[in-house]
């Protein structure tokens, strides 16, 4: 029966990735619109344009698949798949409830950090193979940015791992369900003791997602569309889907690490099996809103400002966070 379980898992993830991308994408359209005093899509599907992204997806599939003459054909064709695959692999590391999960590894958070970096290779492939100066600059900017912000992301996770004493995401969630603030008996998730790490993680996620204020890889006013400039049709759709699905996935990981994941207080572990996914969904929605809120508020940084911000502020801060967590851990034990 193992292969049946595997098949179901594959099906669920294959459905969850596009659906979550569509929901996040629609939230993006609507939240950004309302923050700019607009309404966003209102026509497709009659009710507040709910079918806008379905229509967009159909449109992308119908479009011609253009590969530039000078492009490195195979690399060009594979790049969107690599980017999307990275996101799919991030999805398999998310625990949705004590029992609902694709894999359960002792070093699950490590797997997440490893697979989320694969996207950088896809982006670099896309930028390199497009035979276009904008794509090349965009690809290099994206690669530089993903490398620079991977470090604070990892270091922020290290704080959580030290606090929980485990690298398993299930372990981190159960550690949060038992964490008492200064022995007062008040159980709080890790965003309270790890507030610095939480802020660093959110900022680094924003950069990993290449969203404003860290959207230099796309930089539509200067680089047309960065590494996605030459893409059209369903290959562009892959980038589009990867962008919003990774938004969802990173929010899920951030919710698991800092907001207690599928866990809420005053609910028995037996009940969590059933309401866990919904609890996680609410937390993801909250974090996705924060991502989009930051995106719609801040203007784009310059490339040198971005690198300086990562290397001179975020990374030292996250090292300070690790040191503080260590001291905290030793003092309280």
């Amino acid at each position: 029966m193992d292969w049946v379980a595997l098949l179901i898992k594959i099906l669920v993830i294959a459905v969850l990735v596009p659906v979550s991308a569509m929901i996040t994408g629609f939230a993006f359209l609507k939240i950004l619109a309302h923050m700019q005093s607009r309404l966003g899509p209102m026509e497709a599907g009659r009710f507040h344009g709910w079918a806008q992204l379905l229509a967009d997806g159909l449109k992308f599939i119908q479009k011609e698949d253009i590969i530039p003459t000078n492009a490195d054909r195979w690399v060009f064709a594979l790049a969107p798949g690599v980017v999307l695959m990275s996101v799919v692999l991030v999805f398999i590391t998310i625990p949705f409830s004590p029992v609902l999960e694709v894999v359960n590894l002792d070093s699950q958070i490590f797997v997440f950090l490893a697979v989320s970096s694969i996207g950088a290779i896809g982006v670099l492939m896309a930028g390199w193979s497009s035979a276009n100066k904008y794509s090349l600059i965009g690809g290099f900017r994206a690669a530089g940015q993903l490398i620079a912000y991977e470090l604070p992301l990892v270091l922020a996770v290290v704080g959580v791992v030290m606090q929980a004493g485990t690298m398993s995401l299930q372990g981190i969630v159960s550690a949060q369900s038992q964490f008492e603030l200064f022995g007062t008996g008040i159980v709080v998730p890790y965003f309270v003791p790890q507030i610095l790490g939480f802020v660093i993680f959110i900022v680094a996620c924003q950069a990993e997602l290449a969203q404003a204020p860290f959207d230099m890889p796309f930089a539509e006013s200067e680089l047309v569309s960065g590494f996605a400039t030459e893409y059209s049709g369903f290959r562009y759709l892959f980038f589009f889907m990867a962008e919003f699905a990774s938004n969802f996935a990173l929010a899920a990981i951030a919710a698991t690490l800092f907001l207690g994941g599928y866990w809420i207080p005053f609910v028995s572990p037996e009940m969590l099996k059933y309401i866990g996914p919904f609890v996680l969904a609410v937390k993801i929605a909250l974090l996705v809103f924060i991502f989009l809120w930051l995106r719609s508020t801040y203007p784009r940084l310059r490339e040198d400002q971005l690198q300086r911000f990562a290397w001179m502020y975020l990374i030292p801060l996250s090292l300070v966070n690790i040191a503080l967590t260590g001291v905290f851990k030793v003092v309280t034990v």
Partner: protein
Amino acid sequence: MTQAQDLEQGAPGAESEPHEGTGASNKTLKYGSPAHPARIKGLFTGLWVTLRTMLSRSQVVQYPHVKETPHPRARGVIGLQEENCTVCMLCARECPDWCIYIEGHQEKRPPRHEGGKPRQVNILNRFDIDYALCMYCGICVDVCPFDALHWSPEYEYSELGISDLLHDKDRLGEWDSTKPKLPAYEAGSTMKAPK
């Protein structure tokens, strides 16, 4: 922390930025620094502005379903009050992109007084404005000596083809009927008696 570091180092204009008065304790902290309190405060102000905008009603209307009433003095389109036109051609000659086409002829009319010469009147045959060319400067409205041209707030006259934007005097007359009514004369002044 790295207070001396300045994010704006690369920008030549950064040094000349005015130092905002946010406390004398930040003398070592340049305004360009990301750790400057004014900057940190600005980040949260920005978040508050976008959140407030999101929670308030959006400023747009769903155009084909809901229509805004334009301001009565809005410069939507130029209408023609045909009986005022004397075919003087001033508007056509002043038009910067020559989008007004006027044709007319002269007719004799019986004299106004017994035994006088017959009067000569100009009759308007054609008055077209090509709205594909018009740039809505309103010079024609200003130069018209007999107030035959008026601004109307009408705005829904898009066409499928560019050549369909040439509108004749009947259409211009329809638009003239939507022009705002002139305000009443002040008390004490009298209206010129029509001849």
